[in-house]
Structures are given as C-alpha cells and as structure tokens.
C-alpha cells in the first residue's frame, strides 16, 4: 500500500485530517488499530463548547463553532448537532466572581461568545435547576452533537473523498527513509511521504516508533447515561469548580460526565469505572437537578484520551523527524475542535504551514530528551 499521507488513528481527529487532506487532492490511507471511534471519539459526551476555553485554543474553537453550525457543508450531515447552548452555573459567590472575571476579560479582548446571566434568566432557561444557583456563563451558540453519528458522517465523507480506511490495523514499526516512511503494520507495509499521528491515548507509542518520543498522561474520564426520560433540560449544564457536565440527548437519555477519572489498567490498554469517584459527579448532578434522583442509570464507562501537563493539545510538525505531524493530547476537550484542527493540519500536510498560530501546541513541551548520540 502506498499514499501521500498515512494517518495513524481512526478517531475523529484522524478522520477529519484525512478527509480535509483528501479533499485537496492528497492520497490518504488511514489506519485504525480497532474500529473507527473505538476510544475517546466514541466515549465522549460530544459537547460542542467554546465556553471556558483556554485563550490559546479560542481561535481554533471559534472557527470550529462556525463549522458546527454548517456541518452539513463539510460532511453532508449535521452530526446530530443541537445548538442548545451551554451554561456554566455558579453555585456560590466565589464561583460567580470567577465567572464574572473571565467574561470581563474575554470582553476586554473583544470576545463576545460568553455572556454573564443572572439568576432569573438562568432559571427561565432551565426551570428544573436548583434554586441555590446564582448565575451562569451562557454561550448561546454552543451545544452538543451525537458522537456516533459524527463518526459515521466523517467516515462516509472521508471514504467519498477517496481516503482508504484500514481497520483492525496495528502499526508496529515506522522507518523514515530520505523521502518517505515505511510503516510496518499488522496488515502489511505502507509507504507514505507524510505521517499524521492522531493516536489519542496511544499517540506516545506512535511518536516513539517514529523517533520523536514524548511523555503524556492518559485521561480516563467517566460518563453516565440513564434510561430515557421526558424532556426537562435543554442546554448543556456544567458547574464551575465541580466535575460535572449534564445534558439530555435527542433520545431523551441523560448524559452525565465532567471529568471524574476512572481506573487505568497497569498496562495502559484499558480503563474501568471507579464507582465511588463517579458518585461525585452524579452527586453534583443530583444537587443541581433534584428531580432526576429516581432516574435509572443504564450504562457507565471510562474513555481513554491523551493528556498533557497544560491540558493543551499537541498540534504541529515534529522538530526531530522529517515528515511527521502530531495531532493528539486534547486532554478531554477535543471533540468540538475536530473540524478546525483537521483544517489546520490539512494546511500543514498540503502547504507546510497554516494561518493559525500553533506555537502553544508545540510538541517540544512534552518531548522526552534523548541521550546525545
């Protein structure tokens, strides 16, 4: 097998890079060790959120937000995106002051996507919300999407654009020759000029194979989904200082997440639910929405995702190896960024540079120093 570009990792970021590169005439092979969306992309709460983003991520996030509102133009499907808005509530005065500071700071920089709202407006947006909540940051254009539908839409669009997708394909070796890579995989050798490392929780292993070793942690955020219940909450709701995100899906199920961490297996190949840790998120949800107390949980899980020390992703060229571009380390909030990161990385693939400043995402932050030869 041979292509201009080999994308390693069949999550949403890998698919988005593959799609947007192929659309510009690049021949692409994408390999996935299990099946598309097996880990973080399938385990995500699929929040489409500009709210509370790190300033360095805002350009990517705001560009992505615009694409989410016109997602059909990119992948031929709206991916179940519902622009229901996102709320970050303040449960006490301290939290409210922090939100107020952030919104003022954003406004001073010219960003208007977040708005501070008071208790009255908050409770009219979410009548079931507990009365102790004092106010919130409100992003009216945010929302959430359907992760599995998003994976399907990006897959179909990528295939239509000519991407060759190979599932159940594990990369076991990467060798750089003067002009190209030879990738050893469980399904044969693949020759490619460029490699994009979109390996998620296993991106460090891909980086090591390619000769650009990095250190990353693995985040194992847990999620809860309940049985279907009648409609009661429209926006996605989080609470400042609490490990909580709460939403109701189009199917009527409640999805509760927010970053409570599960248990990572010692071999770092799987993660399991830590029920006591999860109880903190669920407790926060019940405190915000007392009426949901009697609703039954159907399923919980722990997803796996690469995490960097500063919680910012790694996006950009390797400085130690030719022909290697990284796109990983989204640290639990990469879903919304899928369209814009794919666009920026496709720029790197096709023209070697992009209009966005990627310096905050430089791989050097997490590089493992190699002993001098």
């Amino acid at each position, binding site marked *: 097998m041979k292509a201009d570009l080999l994308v390693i990792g069949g999550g949403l970021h890998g698919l988005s890079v593959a799609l947007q590169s192929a659309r510009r005439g690049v021949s692409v092979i994408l390999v996935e060790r299990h099946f598309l969306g097996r880990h973080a992309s399938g385990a995500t709460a699929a929040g489409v959120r500009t709210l509370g983003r790190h300033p360095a991520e805002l350009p990517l996030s705001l560009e992505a937000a615009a694409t989410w509102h016109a997602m059909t133009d990119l992948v031929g499907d709206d991916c179940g995106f519902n622009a229901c808005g996102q709320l970050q509530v303040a449960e006490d005065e301290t939290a409210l002051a922090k939100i107020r500071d952030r919104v003022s700071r954003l406004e001073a920089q010219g960003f208007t996507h977040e708005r501070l709202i008071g208790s009255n407006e908050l409770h009219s947006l979410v009548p079931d919300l507990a009365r102790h909540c004092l106010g919130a940051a409100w992003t009216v254009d945010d929302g959430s999407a359907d992760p599995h539908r998003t994976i399907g839409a990006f897959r179909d669009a990528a295939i239509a654009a000519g991407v060759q997708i190979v599932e159940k394909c594990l990369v076991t070796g990467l060798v750089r020759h003067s002009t190209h890579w030879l990738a050893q995989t469980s399904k044969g050798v693949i020759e490619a000029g460029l490699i994009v490392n979109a390996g998620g929780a296993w991106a460090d292993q891909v980086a090591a194979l390619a000769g650009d070793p990095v250190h990353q942690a693995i985040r194992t955020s847990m999620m809860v989904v309940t049985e279907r219940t009648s409609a009661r909450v429209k926006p996605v709701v989080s609470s400042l200082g609490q490990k909580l995100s709460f939403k109701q899906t189009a199917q009527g199920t409640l999805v509760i997440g927010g970053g409570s961490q599960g248990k990572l297996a010692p071999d770092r190949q799987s993660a399991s639910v830590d029920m006591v840790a999860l109880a903190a998120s669920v407790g926060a949800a019940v405190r915000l929405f007392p009426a949901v107390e009697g609703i039954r949980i*159907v399923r919980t899980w722990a997803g796996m995702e690469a995490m960097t020390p500063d919680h910012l992703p790694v996006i950009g060229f390797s400085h130690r190896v030719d022909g290697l571009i990284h796109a990983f380390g989204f640290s639990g909030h990469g879903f919304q960024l899928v369209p814009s990161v794919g666009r920026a990385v496709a720029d790197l693939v096709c023209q070697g540079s992009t209009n966005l400043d990627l310096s905050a995402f430089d791989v050097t932050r997490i590089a493992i120093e190699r002993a001098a030869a």
Partner: protein
Amino acid sequence: MIHDVVVIGAGPAGMSAAVQLRKLGASVLVVDEQPAPGGQIWRGIERNASGPIAVALGPDYQKGRALTAAFRASGAEYSPSTQVWQIEDEWTLFLTSEGKARRVRARAVLLSNGAQERPVPFPGWTLPGVMTVGAAQILLKSGGMLPQGNVWIAGAGPLPLLYATQVLGLKGQISGFLDTSRGLNLAALAKLPAAWRDLPSLAKGLKWQRELRRNGRMIRGVSDLRAEGNGRLQQLEWTAGGVRRKAKADVLLVHEGVVPRIHETLALGCDHDWNPAQKYFAARSNRWGETSRPGLFVAGDASGIGGWTAATVSGEIAALGLAGHLGIKVDTEALRRENQLDGRRSRALALRPFLDALYTPPTTSIADDVVVCRCEEVTAGTIRKVARTSTSDPNAIKAATRCGMGPCQGRQCGYTVQAILAEVHNLPVGDVSFFNIRPPLKPITLGEIASLGELEDAE
C-alpha cells in the same frame, strides 16, 4: 469488615457452596435477587411446601427443601432482595437493597448466578401476550398463576416440557405445543448410550412427552413461527410437514434453551470459552471453578449449563477451591475424593450431551424486519446493513445503531448480533466476540449512586 467470600446467587450452586464454606470455617455473605432462597429451579420452595402447586411442581422441586434448610442453618449471612450492580478489583461489591446502595468487601467472590433464557427473535416476538416459558414458570412458582385463554407453547428443551406437565397437573389448559426441535436425530442417538447413566432423567423426559401427547396437541417439526395481532397477540402461524398453519392464540410461551449469565465475568475481563454445541460463552475456569481472575470463582449454570444436580456438586467443588484460595488449612484434594465430587458431577452431566444434541440452538437466519434489540428497537436489517461496512466487532454495531445500549445491557440482543455479524462476515459464530459490558450490571438510580459519595464523606 471483610467477608472471606461473597456468594452471588442463592440457587443450588450458591447454597451448596455456602453450606460447605461454613463447614470449613469461612465467613460468607450470600446475596440474591429473590426474596427467598432457591434460585430459579426452587423458586418459592419455602412457601410452596404443600398443596396442589407443590404436587404439580414435581419431585425435583421438592428435592430443594433439604438444601434450603441446610443453607438457612449454615450460619452464612444472607442478603435477599439484593442486586449486585458493580464488582471492582480484589474485591469490592456494590449492592442495592430496599432502594439503598452499599459496598461490601470480600477476599474472594463466587458467581453462582445461574442462567438466562436464550432470546430468539422471530416475527411478532415483542407483541404483548408473547413471553418466555421461564417467565411463566416464575409466575407459577411465586404466585400460583396459570396462563388463561388459548395458550400455546413453542420451543425446544426440557423446560417447556416440564412446564407444560406442571400446568396440566394443575388442570390448566394448553391449546398446543409447537416443538421446534429437530426431533431424534443421529447426532442425538449417538449420545444416547452415555445418557443411560442418568436413566431416571431420561425416563422423566419421556414421561413428560407422553403426558403432553395424551392431554393436548403436540406438533412436531415446527419452523417459521410468526406471532400476529393488533396491539397484542391474536394469532399464530407456523410451518409443519411442509404445510403453513394458523391458530388463534392469547398467550404464546417460547423457549429455546438457556445460556449462562456472563455479564459479570465479561465486565471483569475474565477469559471465556465458546460452547459450539449450545452456542454460548462461559467463563473459563479451572478444576476448582476459579476463573482467569484469581479469587473470582464460578459455579453452577453460570459456568456452563449443566442443570441443578451438577450445580450443587460444582458449588461444593468451588467451596473447596475457595478454601484453598483463602489459605484455610484443609486437604482439598482429599475432601474432593471423599465426597466423590468428580464421580457425582460426571453422573449429573451424563444426560447433557444427549440433550445438547437433541435441542440444538436455532440456526435460522433472522428476517430483516424482525426487531433484535427490544430496548432501542433495532431490526435485523439495520444490523446487517451496518455490519456489511463495519468490522466484525459487535461494539462497532452497538456504537453505530444503539443496539445493546438499552436497560437490558445487551442481554436480549447480544448473541443475535453475534450471529448476524458471523453471517455477514462469513465467520464461525464463536470467532465473533460479545459486547463490552459496562457497569452497572443492573440499573440503579442516580440517587443511589450519589448516596455512595455521601457515604465516602462520612468515613
């Protein structure tokens, strides 16, 4: 406090293991979903002590009385009406009873939680009025209830025959028995000589069939069953002897054998083996019933379908294995010999190969318009369509179709999805895996989980 062993399930295997473990001096907590001991086979044994129901349920049922009494007297702590909804490493078990969640700790765990009926989707199987034989038998044992109106039984295996006999014994009506088994075939006949080792059971089965023929309509060689009706079951259709037939029906009870409960061992990542004859997965266990996870044991039908007699013996064997794991100073090999556990088990299993060959699981391909996942209403056609463009991993089907995401956690659709994937990808069925199983093992409420956090704060 840490229990030496938490036993999950108070049926034949769990009770005999608990009795044996107590004799060996271990502290034991037995948790069970039912309000009283006995499991499925002896459900309601303590309340059905006499009267017409006790007589109709038959001699095997009454045999549960002695073990239940021994269990009650064993000194094992017993938590009835309790669900185990999560098991975490070495070993913390999360339980709910009376709406309250709690955690218990154990040095070892025995899963003796039995079997479930094999779900076999067919056109109309989700209509009100269609239920399983096992569910009907629960109503009989726990409330003395008999089905009313035009009652039909369809399926194969010992349970429908036994249940029909029990209903007739209580002067209930059965309009007809649609036998979907292949009948006495060569494969089954080849197993018959070994089956003679369990002559009483063999005779029992023949007696049940004789009574059915005398009292009702026994229709053999049935295929292409369809249940129809407007909002509820009104009519059945089937093919027998090359002829399509119809009948009025108010109740249809179906049964195509039982399969081990594997959600717990799957969730815990135990190794499993595929049973090609009966088409099910069971946790792999060593000669003491220990799974691939040290300290986690299985016994009874949960470790492979063997029936209640074999279950009691495997419970005793697992108790010895658990004693070894706990470091209790006892010669487990000597006790195994003295109690003739291996001989007793092999006699108890003598009829099994014959039954397995006689009652093979259905292999008919499921039509595209039939609902496979009842919770999320996903049809066989939808699953086939996705399967053609996905890998042969059932979790990919689950992600793409929501099949298996509902409250039953794939207990109803898991093996059907596996069969369709095997069919589409042209693989042996056993080469396709099962869904990844996510906690909780049983649905619990948000409030119950939240209360765990408060518990933690209090500590």
